């Protein structure tokens, strides 16, 4: 699977794969008509797709360090874009994003802007230069640019804190989906999810993860777009929802002012199952202060540019030029899903609240709603709830509650689509969570095996031994993540946002200034990484324990404070200490031009 022949044949290979997957969907649809049960369809979808990923993982096995760490640096631009999109779009993007927009409206859409705008920073400030550097991991860049084991080790610490926060959420998401689709308890499903994740990455490292992520992107984008287009057509809202939902958006605004946002009493809300929410914010009206919106978007953008599992995807391209273009393709593939999430939220909300539609439940009697099939299913799954707070016998806007996940998972059923679509959506969610978890676990294991074990502890270790260490770490970190995920400490989305804040607190400025400011030196970088991480963590703990915060920085945007401290510490300490030696300055000059050998390739 390593020959250039395989690379040339990629469009054909993935073309056949996509055709095969669509064929599988059609077979399932026919099987459903012939009486296959919903449960069997769900199992078939998840088992079939996971089997394919595992097969790709096995075919990509390797014993070479270059293939294991950076997929042999031969991943073509467009395919690397797809792999990055899958790497990037997590279970949270797939399952929770549309739900967040459904409940919170405009304020929440800051995440859409933040999680895409960050790629401009990746493309212009970092990715091409780090590719020229020729490193295996992000701490590899820090360690070589600034020199010294302390700088390298500090980068590993920040990377591990950020990525580990992120990965527990992803393993949690694979467990949730596996437990629903396979109908087994969550505590066991988490480990089934973990084994599927490890099957993709253990044998082939980055090479295995790259080719499974491309396969996972294809599954997740079909699974997201097909229902959106289908529902839009079925509702008569327009055949191309992205361009044709203005009337629907306006109609929601009209209904909102007609119903009004009635505030429920605390006693009433106490009867609502945990985790469910009602519609309390306007759908399209601007209901957040500019700073609340902008600070969240800014934190997510800077976090994007600091997350190592994204950055390392651009180490796999054949050239600096390809790395730049590849960032553009990544964002294009992400755009396809992100621009559809608000459309799904709009369709889902309108189909539930418009009394003129047959699916609308507002204004119907409580007993009538409680008798609907899909209501009973999702109520049993603890994702839907109605209650007659004002005692008038009909469902009001403030008396209907839903879980965030239900917007993606239940809308196909509410709109009356066949069950095969729900099975497809489960497979898509699984693909999204698995691909991100793979990238993250690999980022942590590679940093520890390459930077701590090989570069610091045992620089003479042979390749075979290094790769054994890397694989053992992969399993250990995976199990640690799954164990914490099984404890269900925090929600999926909250911990994802924290991961961005941790990453930007410790890594944003040390990475950017490493390329753009020649004067930046080792002492400054260490101060920036450790000071930023410590300051960000302190702020988070302070706000979580009742601190009031300042400048409107919340526990979701603490990275703004952390990175500000990091910048100041780095600049002040750098200027107070000696400037980097001539060799380092020359190295920075070479990083800045695409031509010539990579920095590490010369050593």
């Amino acid at each position, binding site marked *: 699977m390593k020959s250039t022949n395989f690379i040339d044949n990629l469009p054909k290979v993935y073309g056949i794969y996509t055709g095969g997957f669509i064929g599988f969907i059609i077979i399932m649809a026919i099987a459903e008509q012939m009486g296959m049960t919903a449960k069997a369809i769900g199992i078939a979808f998840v088992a079939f797709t996971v089997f394919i990923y595992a097969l790709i993982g096995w075919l990509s096995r390797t014993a070479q360090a270059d293939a294991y760490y950076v997929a042999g640096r031969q991943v073509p631009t467009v395919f690397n874009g797809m792999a990055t999109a899958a790497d990037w779009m997590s279970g949270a993007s797939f399952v929770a994003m549309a739900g967040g927009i459904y409940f919170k409206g*405009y304020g929440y*859409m*800051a995440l*859409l*802007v*933040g999680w*895409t*705008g960050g*790629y*401009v*920073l990746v*493309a*212009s*400030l970092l990715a*091409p230069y780090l590719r020229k550097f020729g490193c295996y991991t992000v701490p590899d860049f820090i360690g070589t640019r600034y020199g010294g084991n302390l700088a390298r080790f500090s980068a590993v610490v920040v990377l591990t804190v950020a990525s580990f926060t992120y990965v527990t959420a992803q393993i949690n998401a694979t467990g949730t989906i596996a437990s629903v689709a396979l109908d087994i308890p969550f505590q066991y499903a988490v480990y089934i999810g973990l084994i599927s994740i490890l099957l993709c990455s253990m044998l082939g490292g980055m090479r295995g993860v790259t080719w499974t992520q491309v396969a996972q992107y294809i599954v997740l984008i079909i699974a997201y777009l097909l229902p959106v287009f289908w529902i839009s057509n079925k509702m008569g809202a327009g055949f191309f929802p*992205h*361009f*044709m*939902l*203005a*009337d629907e*958006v*306006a109609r929601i605004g009209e209904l909102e002012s007609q119903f009004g946002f009635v505030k429920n009493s605390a006693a009433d809300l106490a009867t609502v199952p945990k985790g469910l929410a009602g519609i309390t914010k306007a759908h*399209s*009206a*601007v209901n*957040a202060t*500019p700073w609340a*919106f*902008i600070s969240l*978007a*800014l934190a997510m*953008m800077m976090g994007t540019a600091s997350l190592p599992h994204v950055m390392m995807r651009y180490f796999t391209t054949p*050239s*600096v*030029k390809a790395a*730049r*273009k590849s*960032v*553009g393709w990544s*964002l*294009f593939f992400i*755009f396809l899903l*992100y*621009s559809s999430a*608000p*459309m799904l939220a709009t369709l889902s909300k309108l189909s539930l609240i418009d009394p003129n539609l047959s699916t609308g439940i507002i204004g119907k009697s409580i007993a009538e709603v409680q008798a609907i099939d899909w209501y009973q299913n999702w109520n049993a799954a603890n994702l839907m709830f109605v209650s007659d707070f004002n005692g008038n016998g009909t469902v009001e806007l403030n008396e209907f509650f839903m879980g965030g996940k239900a917007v993606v998972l239940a809308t196909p059923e509410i709109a009356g689509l066949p069950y095969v679509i729900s099975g497809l959506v489960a497979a898509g969610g699984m693909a999204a969570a698995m691909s991100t978890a793979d990238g993250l676990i690999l980022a942590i294991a590679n940093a520890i095996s390459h930077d701590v074990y090989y570069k610091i502890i045992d620089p003479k270790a042979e390749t075979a031994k290094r790769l054994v260490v890397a694989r053992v770490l992969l399993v250990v970190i995976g199990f640690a993540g799954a164990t914490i995920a099984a404890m269900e400490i925090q929600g999926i989305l909250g911990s994802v946002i924290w991961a961005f804040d941790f990453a930007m607190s410790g890594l944003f400025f040390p990475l950017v200034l490493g390329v753009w400011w020649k004067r930046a030196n080792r002492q400054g970088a260490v101060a920036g990484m450790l000071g930023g991480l410590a300051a960000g963590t302190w702020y988070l703990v302070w706000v979580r324990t009742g601190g009031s915060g300042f400048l409107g920085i919340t526990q979701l945007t603490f990275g703004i404070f952390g990175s500000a401290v990091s910048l100041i510490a780095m600049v002040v300490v750098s200027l107070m200490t000696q400037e980097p030696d001539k060799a380092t300055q020359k190295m920075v*000059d070479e990083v*800045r*031009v*695409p*031509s010539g*050998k990579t920095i590490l390739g010369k050593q």
Partner: protein
Amino acid sequence: MSNQEKHWEKSRGLLMITLAIWFVFSIGIFLFGAEMNEVTGPFGYPWTYWFTCQGSLGAFVILIFWFANRQEKIDEEFGFSEREDE
């Protein structure tokens, strides 16, 4: 000024332009979110709503490809682009 210094100066200029455009679409327009949402924009959506759903996102995609092409031209101009056999 050496060839490399000129190359870097031009690259830095491109970065500034890129970041300025990025700033407009990621932060600038949202300073006026409430005012802009009163006006009908593309496809009949309110302007701010359209930017958060599609407009800014699409602008970022175009911006990155534009940046990549410009940077390639700068690299070629000063003879720093990669050779195909590397």
